[in-house]
């Protein structure tokens, strides 16, 4: 292992030249992408959770704020939670200002992430469309387009004909819910989910941070209202600041720290088809019928839908949701009918009272939480890490995180993206 020099390890850079060099010696010379050290006795900051959000938080703590004496503690394997279980959609066409701000920040960071991390995360800005299939949705998405314009988010409301041009495999004249238009974000897209976690991990390790896998936090210690450290399955570790970034298990960690969160853990499922040759160059989301689909670079159709409705920590969902989602997509894309479901899986997401995330101080001093991303966490990883790092470094939220404080629930100042909730007349 190269030794850290001035806080930075000098790791060999990835490039086509490095590949060629290594090919000559049968790739026996590649070094570890990240170190696997034993925990030190104390860190300036501990991040619990080495998923995308936790790793990104650590990365921007180091990069933006010079905080590098950091441990990222992971119960399982880094990137093994929702980061590696989602459908990798990246978009920022949100309605409310705080959402649009953080997701757009995130999306713009994704654009340069491969270069920033020297790890190809395969961000593919192929465009995301959200179909309008009722008059109500047309109005909702038109409103979003107007809001996005003022928020600096590049979207437009497009016609059914344009939808068909962008996605020829779609049936826009379905008998039940014909496509009436779509909100189109040309700069949205997908990325390779594992690579995001791995790339951040490698970069964190490069900065001298410790990524400690297979290490479960069993207790959180505090003194005089402030955090002092954690007990883990790999021993006691002290810290000045603690970031809890454990989607799905946020309530469990909050319980250890002695407070409750406005969160429930639910299963969210997804599936992929067998791979086929490229037939779909955009991401399509259809909220009326509850389904979304894109095609991965491997050729699989990547499909997702809604969450289960009951508290669940099993990472297994109920099949009827898969059935509903597949039904919706077969109706929208008749040509997928004879494709086969290759694999389905579930993850545990945490849902807040207003379905928007929490990046916040907590009742315990120097404990910060980043949670509640619900079904949309992957797209937020860089922005969330950016905002959480700022909060942890400064002790106060910056503009990106300010509105996502958990005290909004007491004030009744929600960030509600579900404008379609009041379908009526």
């Amino acid at each position, binding site marked *: 292992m190269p030794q850290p020099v001035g806080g930075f390890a000098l790791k060999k850079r990835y490039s086509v030249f490095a590949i060629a060099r290594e090919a000559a010696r*049968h790739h026996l010379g590649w070094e570890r992408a990240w170190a696997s050290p034993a925990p030190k006795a104390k860190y300036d900051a501990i991040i619990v959770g080495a998923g995308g959000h936790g790793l990104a938080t650590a990365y921007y703590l180091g990069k933006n704020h010079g905080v590098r004496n950091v441990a990222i503690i992971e119960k399982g394997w880094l990137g093994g939670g929702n980061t590696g279980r989602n459908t990798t959609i990246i978009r920022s066409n949100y309605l409310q200002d705080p959402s649009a701000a953080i997701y757009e920040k995130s999306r713009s960071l994704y654009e340069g992430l491969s270069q920033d991390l020297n790890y190809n995360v395969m961000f593919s800005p192929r465009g995301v469309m959200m179909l309008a299939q009722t008059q109500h949705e047309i109005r909702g998405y038109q409103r979003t387009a107007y809001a996005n314009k003022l*928020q600096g988010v590049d979207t437009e409301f497009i016609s059914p004909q344009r939808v068909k041009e962008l996605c020829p495999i779609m049936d826009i004249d379905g008998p039940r819910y014909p496509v009436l238009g779509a909100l189109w974000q040309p700069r949205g897209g997908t990325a390779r989910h594992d690579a995001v976690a791995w790339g951040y991990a490698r970069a964190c390790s490069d900065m001298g941070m410790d990524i400690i896998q297979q290490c479960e936090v069993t207790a959180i210690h505090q003194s005089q209202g402030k955090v002092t450290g954690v007990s883990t399955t790999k021993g006691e570790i002290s810290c000045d600041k603690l970031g809890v970034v454990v989607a799905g298990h946020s309530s469990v960690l909050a319980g250890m720290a002695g407070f409750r969160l406005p969160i429930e853990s639910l299963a969210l499922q997804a599936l992929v088809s067998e*791979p086929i040759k490229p037939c779909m160059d955009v991401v399509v989301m259809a909220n009326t019928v509850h389904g979304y689909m894109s095609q991965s*670079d*491997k*050729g699989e159709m990547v499909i997702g839908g809604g969450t289960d409705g009951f508290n669940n920590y099993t990472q297994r969902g109920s099949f009827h949701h898969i059935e509903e989602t597949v039904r919706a997509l077969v109706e929208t894309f*008749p040509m997928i009918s004879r494709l086969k479901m290759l694999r389905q899986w579930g993850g545990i997401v945490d849902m807040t009272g207003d379905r928007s995330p929490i990046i916040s101080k907590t009742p315990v001093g120097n404990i910060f939480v980043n949670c509640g991303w619900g079904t949309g966490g992957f797209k937020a990883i860089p922005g969330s890490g950016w905002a959480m790092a700022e909060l942890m470094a400064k002790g106060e939220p910056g503009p990106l995180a300010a509105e996502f404080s958990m005290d909004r629930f007491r004030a009744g*100042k929600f960030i509600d993206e579900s404008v379609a909730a009041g379908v009526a*007349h």
Partner: protein
Amino acid sequence: MSTRLATGGRFLDRARPVSFDFNGKRLRGLAGDTIASALLANDQMLVGRSFKYHRPRGVVASGAEEPNGLVNLGKGAKFEPNQRVTTTELFDGLQAASQNHWPSLEFDVGAVNARLSRFLPAGFYYKMFIHPRSFWKHIYEPFIRQSAGLGKAPKDRDTDTYEHFHAHVDVLVVGGGIAGLAAAMAAGQAGARVLLIEQTAHWGGRAGVDQPQIDGKPAQEWIDETVAALGQMPNVQMRLRMMGAGVYDHGYVLAYEKLTEHDPSLAGPRQRLWQVRTARVITCTGAIERPLSFAGNDIPGVMLASALRDYVVNYATSAGDRTVVVTNNDDAYRTAIALKAAGLVVPCIVDARPSPAGELIQTAREMGIRVEAGKGIAKVKGGKRVTGVAICAQAGEGAVLEEIACDAVAMSGGWSPVVHLWSHCGGKLVWDDEKVMFRPDAARGPTGADGALFVLPGGTANGALQTADVLSDAFAAGQAAAQATGHKAKGKAPAGSDPAEGPISPVWMMPQGAGISLREKMWLDYQNDVKVSDVQLAAREGYESVEHAKRYTTLGMATDQGKLSNINGLAVLSDALGAAIPNVGTTTFRPPYTPITLAAIAGVAKGDLFQPVRKTPMHNWHAEHGAEFEPVGQWHRPYAFVRKGETTHDAVAREVNNTRKAMGLLDASTLGKLIVKGPDAGRFLDMMYTNMMSNLAVGKCRYGLMCSENGFLMDDGVVARIDEDTWLCHTTTGGADRVHAHMEDWLQCEWWDWKVYVANVTEQFAQVAVVGPNARKLLEKLGGMDVSKETLPFMQWADGTIGGFDARVFRISFSGELSYEIAVPAGQGLAFWEALMAAGEEFGVMPYGTEALHIMRAEKGFIMIGDETDGTIIPQDLGLSWAISKKKEDFLGKRAQERSHMTDPNRWKLVGLETLDGSVLPDGAYAVASGHNGNGQRNTQGRVTSTYMSPTLGKGIAMGLVLNGPDRMGEVIEFPKLDGTAVQARIVDQVFFDKAGEKQNV
């Protein structure tokens, strides 16, 4: 060459030749063939190209584990990519084409990737294509996408049908081999309701190939007798061609039945998805043979030993004339023996074990087959077809001892129980050192709703390899399952016997000390091109967990989901990490066991059956009279009634003008109608609505607002008091079910001691709004009750008859016109509507749709749930404080509306908006304020909630929410448009038409 043998073939019907196409070539097979066996019979060993390097690929296996033999099947509406040749039964006229090559299977340009494979190790794409940024999207990614993907994308709409079955049983037995048959027999004899399913077209599994003795007779005889006996049991249901696809919580199992695809002449649905609820699942899913990792183990002609045996015994098809067998266990000797017995040449059995011993070895030797002990294969020779093998010492580094010419290699690395179904729902595995396999850990199985184990593995799937053990284990599982469902176990397990076998020896690499250049040619995952060196690279780079290594290398992520590669890959990873296999763990098995079509999952729900459409009694009339429908919740409502030569916009304007000037009819049947009844009904409604309902006089109507406990406006509607303890609550169209559920929730879970009943009578009544200056004249013409202003004033209701129809008439208006909403029994809705249309002709009656309704309400400044509200709006924002009781101590939402943000004096509030140029404000547009916020977003101060061209006023009108709007009347604010221009609008009163309400109150 591979060819058809002159005799034998258990599954073949030699009297029924079949012809089929492969890559446009007409080939012949026999009824009973799979595509794979028929291709082999035609010496078509090459069946496809691998995913990454486009290496030539031949059939490896004979069942669901096949990674290579995937074809584009059929044409047009019947086209299906990635169809597995080993599990697809042949039929006359079948058309198959190999995948992932250009221009042809034999000559594939993509094979250049194989030459470049040095530069494309595991994870190479993470390390390159990084610069310049734009190249990924425009150059690298399209190239990678085009090279990947395997089968072609279908183009046409599927014309086949699919269906779902639901079944409830005590015991579901998955797998119809001898284990499954024994388990079903045990459970069936005990009296349990049993469903036995088998994924192939044949009962008996591998025992039919190897023919051990069962109960003193050849296995086939026992199989036939048992199948017949089970068939006689009324409590046992048996299905072939039905796969156990997935096991889910609480005993829910998904099964996938192929009905007609093996024989297109059959009528009916193509596939059926079974959703089975079972108390116990017995997984008799057998085992899958593992390949061995030696250099060149992917060259066409290298196959699983069991597969070669299957092809010879079941399909009378030889994969080659000279087959070298390579193994680490006794079972592969059965292949050598079977090949030899079929008259084929087995030049050598290469056994990695130093001193194999056992009855099968003895038999092979006696048949004159050469056995090389302690040896391995250093390298397979050949390109698109095996031409020979180089033999080495297993313990060494691969120095070649001898080369043996052959055209097939039969390999066996031992057997892995099929534990997928056991694992789907959380069943854990235990590593068995002696048998070199993961098998179900009975102590850590999947548990059901009652906390008890509900999946019971049986036979080989539970790690039993000898026939005697298989039968007793599976029979015991059957009995246990029957007992668990309240039945008494009967009978005893069938007895099996087969030759005694010596121990297997774990061999994860051949030879043991192979250098890197050999390891770079040892394939683990044939489809995804993952080699031993790739997994070692992953470990070296820190991708140490199985999940990391799998995802980094793509091992096991191909369409076979690693059925052949997972354990071998895991063993290589363990070795690289210096850890024991069980300490490294396994990846999680996900449903389905093998891929199932999306069509089967969707079932019948497509096209018109996609979702039920709720239709009012007058729906067909509307359709016949030019209605353009829009979905509102599950309902379809007429948006407008468009006449010939009219645009939709014209029609809407006509409907508004006609209603305002003469009369219009609106089908309002979809509005929710909830009867709330009981001594505490008034008290209850006082909690449900923000305003007071308990003091509403009998015979009167009141507009009510309903908030969620979180304070937000969720629904509105007119409430009528029917009698002393009965109220009728109208809801929005989309809100009826939601509001009903909301009421039930509070009644049952919070105020359960209150004496109130709620009934949703929405569909019991058809409701027609008769609207416009001529409305009264029409009703008076039809006659039957007094609808005069005096007898039936505004905001009152009365029962009576109109034109002979029993009717309840409400004097309420959502348009500002003289208006009667008239409910009649749903069955008379159409007749009533037609009567109104006929009698109304002289008064200029026209039907109108939802858009005209919207415009008229907007002209009057009435809010619409879903337009002015979006789940974030409180009544106070909408100037509806008059409808919020100050007297009531409590109602749902009251406490919430006291929170700091809700009482903030600076909220966006409802006003009217009038453009300075008379144009229509864009829907959804925001009004800008000066400056930008901390995130660089333009500050805003309001937004448009409803906007229309008013036919009545001849100009654009709008409502919107504006910061402190009601205090800023007359102020002009700016709404940017998407084209860069902006519209100026003045803040005005939201009531644009008939502010005094003179028209409705006549």
